[in-house]
């Protein structure tokens, strides 16, 4: 097998752009996922029975359906309902975000329930409202404790952004396919793409590990 990496050099602008789209898509889906996850996690834990059931349903649905199916459905089927087509990147960010939100919700809930109930009682006894206690006492400690699983979810979100290639979002994997088709060098191009993803994901994982080691004492109670 003859290996020739020159298509990578020739098309470096194209690849850099694709990396940019991957980063933007990951960032959007992570922001959306965190927002949904934090709100749903808090509401599911403290919001009473009805909200627990409704959010539980959302979580279970998205834990059971593959991201691929979610993305395809939002890109191809959802526009038929709303009568307006969606941009691939927007559809990708929404699908990935809603999917991620379900996992973040469960992680947050796990963190919140792991904080001893005495802390909530102490805060209430000090005259804080329930919302204040959650925001200032419970959530900060819970965040430190769930940092490791949250870190895995962030890395997962970056990796899952590659699945948006099936709905033609011009991110790294999609553009690699385009290049591979044009240059007939799939081995070199997919290997390079693999390396790029590794260089994005691995430092994120290590960074969160280190952050956690620094912050871990703050989550102990």
């Amino acid at each position, binding site marked *: 097998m003859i290996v020739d990496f020159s298509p990578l050099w020739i098309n470096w602008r194209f690849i850099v752009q694709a990396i940019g789209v991957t980063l933007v898509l990951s960032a959007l889906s992570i922001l959306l996922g965190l927002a949904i996850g934090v709100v749903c996690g808090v509401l599911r834990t403290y919001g009473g029975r009805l909200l627990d059931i409704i959010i539980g349903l959302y979580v279970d649905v998205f834990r059971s*359906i593959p991201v691929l199916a979610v993305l395809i*459905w939002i890109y191809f089927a959802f526009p038929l309902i709303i009568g307006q087509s969606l941009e691939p990147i927007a559809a990708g960010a929404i699908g990935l975000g809603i999917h991620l939100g379900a996992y973040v919700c469960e992680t947050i809930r796990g963190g919140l329930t792991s904080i001893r109930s005495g802390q909530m009682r102490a805060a209430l006894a000090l005259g804080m409202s329930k919302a204040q206690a959650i925001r200032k006492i419970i959530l900060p400690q819970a965040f430190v404790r769930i940092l490791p699983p949250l870190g895995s979810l962030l890395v997962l979100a970056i990796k899952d952004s590659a699945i948006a290639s099936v709905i033609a979002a011009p991110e790294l994997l999609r553009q690699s396919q385009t290049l591979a088709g044009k240059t007939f060098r799939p081995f070199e191009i997919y290997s390079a793409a693999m390396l790029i993803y590794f260089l994005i994901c691995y430092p994120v994982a290590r960074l969160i590990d280190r952050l956690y080691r620094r912050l871990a004492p703050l989550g102990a109670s």
Partner: protein
Amino acid sequence: MTLDWSVVWDNRFRLLDGAAMTILLAVTTMAIAIPGGLLLAFLRLSPWRGVSATATAIVEFFRATPLILQIYWVFYVLPAAFDIGFSEFTTAIVGLSLNVSAFNSETFRAGILSIRQGQWNAGLALGMSKPQVMRQIILPQAVLRVLPSLASTWVSLFKDTSLVSIIAVADLSYVALKVRSESFRILEVLTAMAGLYLLMGYPQAKLVDWLHRKYKVVE
């Protein structure tokens, strides 16, 4: 907008075949990835630095890159490297197994390391050899501890099998996308696909929750 669900009913056997393929992919992959993960875990715990470093590099690499790209990569690299074409199914199994083995190895390693050192010492003090201690004392306890994580990996794997549709393995997603493009009943077919995944995945997710509650580690 008018909905016509008859297209789903007319293609029910194809969709069910696709679902069967999804199950077959998940089962075959897990059957390979459990011994594969165990092997990688042992290599990582090996006292020889060269061996453990290589195993660590492999595991970290497969955990930090997208599975969908790994599948493409295997699809193009396998035939070039071995100079023979593999069927799409074999390619899919190779790609999925490599990925899940890496994740399983972390689970197994954590399970083995979670058993306290005193158990090793006690076993060795009783005159057992190291492999004996591993086989008869450590592993049986570790198995129970890793069961919940292993079950979570299984559910992820079950969903991730959908990614092999990109290399034309006739799993549920592939069949659904095909029916969609033949019938143009996009909303009905794709909703049916999501519904079938939900039907299969929901009980599994609940089972995992139950396992997590039942086998929670209390020391």
